[in-house]
């Protein structure tokens, strides 16, 4: 006996629901990490990641494949992060040059390079920061990043080059060691 149309809809909705939940569990790390590495704040990153998944739920019918889903999530997350930063008008802007440099030896409570690097990444200019996050978290090529952020490949490359130079310089002066390779 064929199910009634309403029941079919409910059944279909249930399947979509399950599929969506699977997608959330599978890709939550991607979305949350991008937001966290970009924003540097766990609570805000979690809130933003939830919004991204709610947006995915609204557009779930339009997702065609797994790769399309990943592309969609990366794109929406990056744009939402950039929008969030731009929306914070009153936020005090701290450029990388303004990051206070402290000697590492005795006072610094966080001696781990990863922690320093993460903090320095969050002080990069917004576009450069997103490029760095996509390059080193998601391991995307400059071409893929340019498609995702809708910017020329050369801009992506120059963002990467300048960001690496800045980070290298800051790390060298911060750690007071040999020039950073």
């Amino acid at each position, binding site marked *: 006996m064929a199910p009634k149309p309403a029941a079919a809809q409910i059944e279909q909705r249930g399947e979509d629901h399950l599929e969506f939940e699977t997608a959330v569990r599978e890709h939550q790390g991607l979305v*949350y990490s991008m937001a966290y590495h970009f924003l540097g704040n766990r609570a805000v990153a979690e809130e933003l990641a939830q919004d991204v998944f709610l947006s995915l739920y609204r557009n779930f019918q339009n997702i065609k494949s797994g790769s399309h889903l990943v592309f969609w999530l990366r794109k929406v997350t990056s744009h939402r992060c950039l929008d969030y930063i731009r929306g914070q008008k009153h936020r005090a802007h701290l450029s990388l040059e303004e990051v206070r440099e402290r000697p590492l030896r005795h006072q610094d409570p966080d001696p781990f390079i990863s922690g320093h690097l993460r903090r320095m990444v969050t002080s990069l200019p917004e576009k450069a920061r997103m490029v760095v996050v996509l390059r080193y978290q998601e391991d995307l090529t400059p071409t893929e990043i340019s498609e995702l952020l809708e910017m020329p490949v050369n801009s992506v490359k120059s963002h990467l080059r300048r960001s690496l130079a800045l*980070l290298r310089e800051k790390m060298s002066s911060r750690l007071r060691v040999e020039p950073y390779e």
Partner: protein
Amino acid sequence: MNSIEEDLKQALRRQEPPADFAGKVMDRVNSGSGLEPEKRPGPNKVLVFRLKPKVVLWLATAAAAACVLGLFTIRSYFADRGSVEVAGPVSTSNQLPRVATPQPSDARPNPAPSIAEGNEIGRGPRRIGAGDLRPGIRRSSHRGHAGTSVPDEARRAEEQLRLALAIASAKLGYAQRSIQEADGTNSVDREANP
């Protein structure tokens, strides 16, 4: 890949969200909170009005027409004002003032009309206020000084101008005569010494 790139990869490796993250998302989905269509900033009615191409075109045309009309009105107003101020005394006396300057002889007709005649009689009195005057005179005819009426000032300016033109005319005639005399001398010399 160099050291900083390795360190960046290490620093930016994926991190899992809090354990109940997926549950929170599903709760929001089930409760329907945040599922309403995303509100995009609605267009401002005034902005829409301003951005309609036809309206913009009409407004721009009207503004341009108003500017042209305004400029034309202002210009004609000042031109009329200048002619009215000067027209009175000029219309009553068309004769140039007598100036004690050497005049060309009666037997020899003056081939070139004097500047005063060319400017004053040929064009009429209206030109005095329009653009042939010196800046100082033009300004005084428009604004006037404290305590003097504008027509008086214009009349004085006109007299000064006539005097200046008469002097210039006389000097021109004198120079012309001198040249002609010199030419005559030269012709005699040429005849004597071919």
